[in-house]
């Protein structure tokens, strides 16, 4: 199985690659359109801000390519947010594959932004991506922007209000947390993606 990591400059790309290696999958790091198109699975990692993330995809000429993919695609953290229509972060037009807007967490007393740490995942729909996920299992989040719960939300987490932790529309999937840094739970969810 050919798994590729789209090299859009995210700093977590090495960690995601190592996490896949721990699952026995050697993923190629690439920004080459033909290699991405030919892959069985495509992962878009990402850490950083939406504006530079989209700018990098545009620079690499990958925007239309990403939109045209038909194999399972997984966006991680910022990668998930880039799959959405629009982000409040820098008022950025994103890939538009999931019709949702990425919003900044509203600061409230006792609610620190960024949302950083382990939080509960709560399944809202049945989906092969969530296979063997038990209620109350936790994943590691680090982010200041989030996708509100919508009809594409597979699992939510709660921080002041519920937000999308796992999302899917057709072949496009997203995880707001870092599966590569979420211990056994994260490994299981990555494995589920590889099995799609």
């Amino acid at each position, binding site marked *: 199985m050919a798994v590729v990591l789209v090299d859009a400059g995210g700093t977590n790309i090495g960690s995601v690659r190592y996490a896949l290696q721990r699952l026995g999958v050697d993923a190629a790091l690439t920004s080459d359109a033909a290699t991405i198109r030919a892959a069985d699975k495509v992962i878009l990692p990402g*850490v950083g801000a939406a504006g530079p993330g989209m700018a990098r995809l545009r620079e690499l000429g990958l925007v239309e390519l990403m939109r045209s993919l038909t194999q399972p695609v997984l966006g991680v953290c910022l990668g998930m947010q880039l799959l959405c229509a629009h982000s409040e972060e820098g008022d950025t037009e994103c890939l538009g594959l999931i019709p949702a807007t990425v919003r900044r967490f509203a600061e409230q007393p006792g609610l620190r932004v*960024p949302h950083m*740490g382990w*939080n*509960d995942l709560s399944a809202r729909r049945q989906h092969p991506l969530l296979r063997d996920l038990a209620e109350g299992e936790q994943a*590691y989040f680090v982010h200041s922007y989030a996708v509100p719960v919508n009809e594409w939300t597979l699992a939510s987490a709660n921080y002041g209000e519920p937000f999308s932790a796992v999302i899917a529309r057709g072949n496009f999937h997203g995880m707001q947390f870092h599966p590569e*840094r979420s211990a056994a739970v994260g490994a299981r969810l990555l494995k589920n993606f590889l099995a799609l």
Partner: protein
Amino acid sequence: MLSRRIIPCLDVRDGQVVKGVRFRDHVAMGGIVDLALRYRDEGADELVFYDITASPEGRSVDRGWVEKVARVIDIPFCVAGGIRSVDDARAVLHAGADKVSVNSPALERPELVAELAAAFGVQCVVVGVDSLRDADGEWRVRQYTGDPSKTRALARRTLDWVAEAQRLGAGEIVLNCMGSDGVRQGYDLEQLNAVRVLCRVPLIASGGAGAIEHFRDAFAEADVDGALAASVFHSGAIAIPGLKRYLHEQGVAVRLGPCDRP
């Protein structure tokens, strides 16, 4: 609910994990990867690696071990020590670290915090603050604490520095209370509370853990997001699974292992 984090801190010197008392007289505790794996298995929520020799010697952190840790560890980890530029930070983040922590170099040149936040996002940028109460009752920051012969007391007030670091783009503050570090009498709740009031980003308590009650106090009384400790974990005086069960019973939200979940 977001869990409070338990964070073992591994002070690294010459490729070994060390721990001293009050930042002095460091003794070797073991290999980096071995200890990292042990803490992952025990349920640590995150790890911090401080290269305590890097900053005073004016060199950046040695990246070899960062990549080794990143390959085997599946929980987040932060690297600190001698990161003085965006390039230094990029090298460490690309080697697989999730966050970088800056301390002395940020005091030399506070714009470093803003540069790191612009390049990688605030979520990658931790500002470590070494703080000690002076004779006049004010908490002030210390610089180059990795080497007692080079440690400097600054005129900068701790509370001012925390406010400035946030304004510049710190995504998390680690407050090392040097007066309580290594003596195991509990975290400095007074100081943590004073910083908590003006800290809108996650705040991590550091320095003073000696008993499981100290962790509860830091979470329940100073509302910190995470508690960092070193020697009590390295020595085995406190085991993380038991600590987490205790905190859970005390009503502190923590991440439990599969066997402990209700």
